[in-house]
């Protein structure tokens, strides 16, 4: 019942009062300013939103990928390498929380070094450490306990649980996510300020209209609603245009690939494409509050 009541208010607001609308003449430049500001700000908001959503997604992906694996590096004299590798494998196989552990093949190690040394790196003639890839079970393993056991069994083994990679990556992604949302807040704050300016200009231009309406018995809410409705609908229209343009540009950005890294991954994914729809609604809310506040403060100056 309460929902139906509120819905009827929203519908009344959208449909408006034709007679009240006619009483307040449109002021051309404020209408254009509102539409332009809303379009530009919504366009920018799409990118800020894309940045934030992408950063969040990237942070989750990096964390998930790195958190589920670890690497054991064995550096030992050539004569001891096999013995320490076997010892390390035995330790890993008996460590709770490790789902699997396997030696990286020569080809895999060569592929890892290829970006630095080229495809023909003579692996057998270089003192390359042996790498063991560890995949964690869901419960995870005790990294400190494992290190202590390895010191005793395979002193050349160094466990890298990716913490030192994960932490700065997660921090960077979190900062990007925060920057994205901060940008969105600032964009909407600027939008609110511009709409307030435009609304004040419209109210000043219609000072006589407001005075006459007060004189013949109009309530403040009646006068304010004519301005609030007009500015809110204009802002939603402008923001919808800006949102569509912004999404179109995001759509034509290069697709994510393994070479492009973060920059080519800027955008939305799956249901995330629905996020931009929030922008016109939020812009409408900002316009509603900004115009109502401007109208109320103007009307309070009149008796």
């Amino acid at each position: 019942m309460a929902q139906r009541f509120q819905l009827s208010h929203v519908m009344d607001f959208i449909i408006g009062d034709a007679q009240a609308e006619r009483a307040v003449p449109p002021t051309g430049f404020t209408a254009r300013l509102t539409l332009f500001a809303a379009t530009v700000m919504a366009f920018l908001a799409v990118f800020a939103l894309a940045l934030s959503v992408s950063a969040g997604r990237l942070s989750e992906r990096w964390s998930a990928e790195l958190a589920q694996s670890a690497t054991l590096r064995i550096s030992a004299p050539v004569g001891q390498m096999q013995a320490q590798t076997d010892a390390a494998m035995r330790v890993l196989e008996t460590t709770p929380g490790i789902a699997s552990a396997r030696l990286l093949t020569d080809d895999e190690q060569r592929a890892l070094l290829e970006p630095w040394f080229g495809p023909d790196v003579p692996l057998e003639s270089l003192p390359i450490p042996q790498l063991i890839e560890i995949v964690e079970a869901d419960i995870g393993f005790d990294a400190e306990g494992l290190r202590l056991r390895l010191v005793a069994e395979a002193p050349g083994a160094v466990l890298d649980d990716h913490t030192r990679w994960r932490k700065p990556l997660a921090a960077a992604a979190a900062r990007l996510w925060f920057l994205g949302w901060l940008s969105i807040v600032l964009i909407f704050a600027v939008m609110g300020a511009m709409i307030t300016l435009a609304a004040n200009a419209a109210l000043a231009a219609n000072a006589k209209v407001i005075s006459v309406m007060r004189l013949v018995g109009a309530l403040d809410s009646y006068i304010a609603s004519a301005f609030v409705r007009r500015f809110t609908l204009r802002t939603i229209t402008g923001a919808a245009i800006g949102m569509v343009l912004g999404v179109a540009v995001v759509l034509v950005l290069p697709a994510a690939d393994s070479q492009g890294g973060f920059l080519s991954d800027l955008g939305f994914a799956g249901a995330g494409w629905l996020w931009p729809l929030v922008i016109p609604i939020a812009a409408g809310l900002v316009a509603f509050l900004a115009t109502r506040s401007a109208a109320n403060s103007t009307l309070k100056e009149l008796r």
Partner: protein
Amino acid sequence: MIELEQVSYSYGEGELLSDISISLSAGSFHFLTGPSGAGKTTFLKLCYGELLPSAGYVRLFDRDVRSLTRDDVAEMRRRIGVVHQDCQFLDHLPIADNIALPLTVAGHSVRDDQSDLTELMSWVGLRSRAYALPPELSGGERQRAALARAVIMSPDVILADEPTGNLDWEMSQRLLQLLVELNKMGKTVVIATHDLALIRAAKSQVQARVLRIANRHLTVGADL
């Protein structure tokens, strides 16, 4: 209906009205006279709550104006029709819409009240000018339209500020007749004017009191 008790009003440091007490009862007819700048318009503004007294009390329909909220003031103005000397129209709206404005802002559908509006426009002789914009009307037509707007909500009180200021004698007489008709319907009428000929002309038509503002004070003259 409207009571002023020991009312004073000051603009800045200068006192314009001082110690004014008067009661405008239901169905009474008053002329408010005095030299230009004496405070006639200020007196009327006090009577419809646009100004608050610097001292004393103004009571509209038994309520102290200081206790009224902004919405109360708006509601009160639907019971008090005001005719301004400069008419105060919305120039972008046809005159019929201007006349219907009090109905519109009160949430009435003009379509539902169309026959009343048409009848009212005929009464003030503006039926054929319904779609004209205010700047296209003559001074007399504008004053009659302002009167029509003032009475469309069937208010209890009509306050007219120099309603015949820009009119010729014949048009002034016609406007006076309209106000007298309204008074005979039981409305309280106050006309601020410095047109003594108009006051003399009213003598044969209505029992009116003359109020005079001069030197900050209000004096109540004899009944006409």
